[in-house]
């Protein structure tokens, strides 16, 4: 790993990473790259998030869906764990709660493939520091 040795360096790396993310987000439907985040804090893992994450990885691979699946921390909705956030290209992220295998399949088949909303999505109920 190349070390960051100045503030300018840090800013350059930030821009690199940001543009990488932007590329991912704006890749539009032509190159449909789906981003999936699974809440993997203690609350999520205790409710089965690990299994859901591997299921999502297998299933998207199986159906040849171009998806980046990563883990993230607690989204705050501990009552609805496991929670999964899906960002379709060009769309706002949507969070789904109480995701078991069945619901994970529904998320893939209905939301990711057809773009239909499905029951149990959790509306974002907080402001971020960027607003």
């Amino acid at each position, binding site marked *: 790993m190349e070390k960051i040795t100045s503030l300018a360096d840090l800013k350059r790396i930030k821009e690199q990473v940001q543009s990488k993310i932007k590329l991912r987000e704006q890749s539009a439907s032509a190159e449909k790259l789906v981003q999936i985040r699974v809440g993997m804090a203690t609350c999520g893992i205790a409710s089965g998030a690990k299994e859901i994450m591997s299921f999502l990885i297998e299933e998207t691979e199986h159906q040849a869906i171009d998806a980046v699946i990563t883990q993230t921390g607690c989204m705050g909705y501990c009552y609805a764990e496991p929670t999964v*956030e899906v960002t379709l290209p060009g769309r706002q992220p949507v969070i789904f709660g109480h995701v078991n295998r069945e619901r994970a399949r529904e998320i893939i088949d209905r939301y990711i493939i*057809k773009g239909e909303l499905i029951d149990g999505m959790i509306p974002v*109920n907080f402001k971020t520091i960027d607003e």
Partner: protein
Amino acid sequence: MSDYNMQILICGGTGCKASESEEIRNVFNDLLGEYLLEDEVQVVTTGCFGFCEKGPIVKVLPDNTFYVHVTPSDVDEIIREHLVKGRQVERLLYRDPHSHEVIHDSKGMDFYKKQIRIALRNCGFIDPENIEEYIARDGYMALGKCLSEMTPESVIDEIKKSGLRGRGGAGFPTGLKWEITSRSVADQKYVVCNADEGDPGAFMDRSILEGDPHSVIEAMTICGYCIGADKGLVYIRAEYPLAIQRLKVALDQARAYGLLGHNILGTPFGFDIELRYGAGAFVCGEETALIHSMEGSRGEPTVKPPFPAESGYLGKPTNVNNVETFANIPVIINKGAAWFSAIGTEKSKGTKVFALAGKINNVGLIEVPMGTTLREVVFDIGGGIKGGKKFKSVQTGGPSGGMLTTASLDTPIDYENLQAAGTMMGSGGMIVMDEDDCMVAIAKYYLEFTLEESCGKCTPCRIGNKRLFEILEKITAGNGKEEDIDKLRMLSHVIKDASLCGLGQSSPNPVLSTLAHFEDEYLAHIKQGRCPAGKCKALLKYVVVEDKCTGCTLCFRTCPVGAITGERRAPHFIDQALCIKCGICFEKCKFDAIELA
């Protein structure tokens, strides 16, 4: 992509469900069929919007119309006017409570968002094990700004101006703490992060470390720069294995990127962080006890002064801050003290993370501006009380805190107001109680916890709490006397006055607070031998209602101790001397023939 032109989102949170949201969905489905719109409009049930007091809520996409207090009979009008003719149904739109104006343009829909996430800004957004995602969201920018553009004094000044206060409990001004430590002269100083989260029901520090470990690492490094320390220590309980693992990964990555170590960002400043594991003792959250534990001694508090700022870890000046406090620092540097201090109340700035637990629908982690009312937290964000039961109280501040009752529902939450209400901010656990919770039993529960966790150094805490506990045990067993109430009060004050550290000084708080708000419950136990909430087993009495008993023998067959006798088809009888009050007969009886006397 989807074939639907419009989507109707119906809140299916527990609060809205209780007020007919399911019925609303059914009516939508039926009527959309009648209007031949079912192929164009999709109806979806969502999770909680966090605005339950205005529920049931119906949101229409793509135009983001937000309808409140919708009833099933409103559905026809919404379809006819809005979906067919494209005109919003004015009377169902949300009105701004101050200007009374109707909100048409609901773009952004911020008015119902009662939370603002500062400390939790990255939790649930980034991969905690990928430093690049942290950097992409302004990570380590604050450190860069401090090291290259600001002097330690100006950073401390900025933190002081922001009004940030310690999020671990007492609310000491963070900037002032840094300033005091920075003024101590020594060859070595330390930055310590207190990640010994011990309050039952609080888990925000764990979540921050699991979800955004770099924010704490960055803030500790900034603190090191300010106070002149090159070494940081995170004191974390061994019971948090995932948080420890993520911290380790984050530390390795930060070192690999040169964000920890010598000459950070090309400056002469160097800093590194090590982990120290605690064995999960509550008292080790107290800073002197924490320091002793890190040194390898017993986790016992010592007299302050000297404060850790003068003589802390290994006798060197040490700055101890809590995880959540640290998590706020980078944002304050990046966005400025003025931005931060615009949020919150006069003396409590910024936001506070609360862990909602107990009898509340939306158990979870929330972050609200200081000054948000308890009602908003419990009934909007929290989604109200489970099972539609009645709200009784909220316990804040853990075993050191007290009760907030219905009288405090509209009090803005900040350090001062909580103190005035007889409790404290603590680390931010909020345990919600309903009508079924017995306040004497709750006080007893917390006392049992402190009893376990008292280090035993001070007699009032070690023995006094034991005596307090015994009195409460007596009362819940139905053997209390009226003078016990005075004894509880007297003993509580002695323990508070004569204990050395915060644990002992605050341990009687749950007793004093429940006595202040619910003395009638104590009296009911003592005078009438009755537990109003029906929780204290010794005071329960199950009896058979002879008129209703059909003599089915089900209770006779399920009673685990053979306390029930009776002939087939004749009323049964419960022998109170044998009954262990397990309540199985009460649950099993199909004829409601067993009652709680």
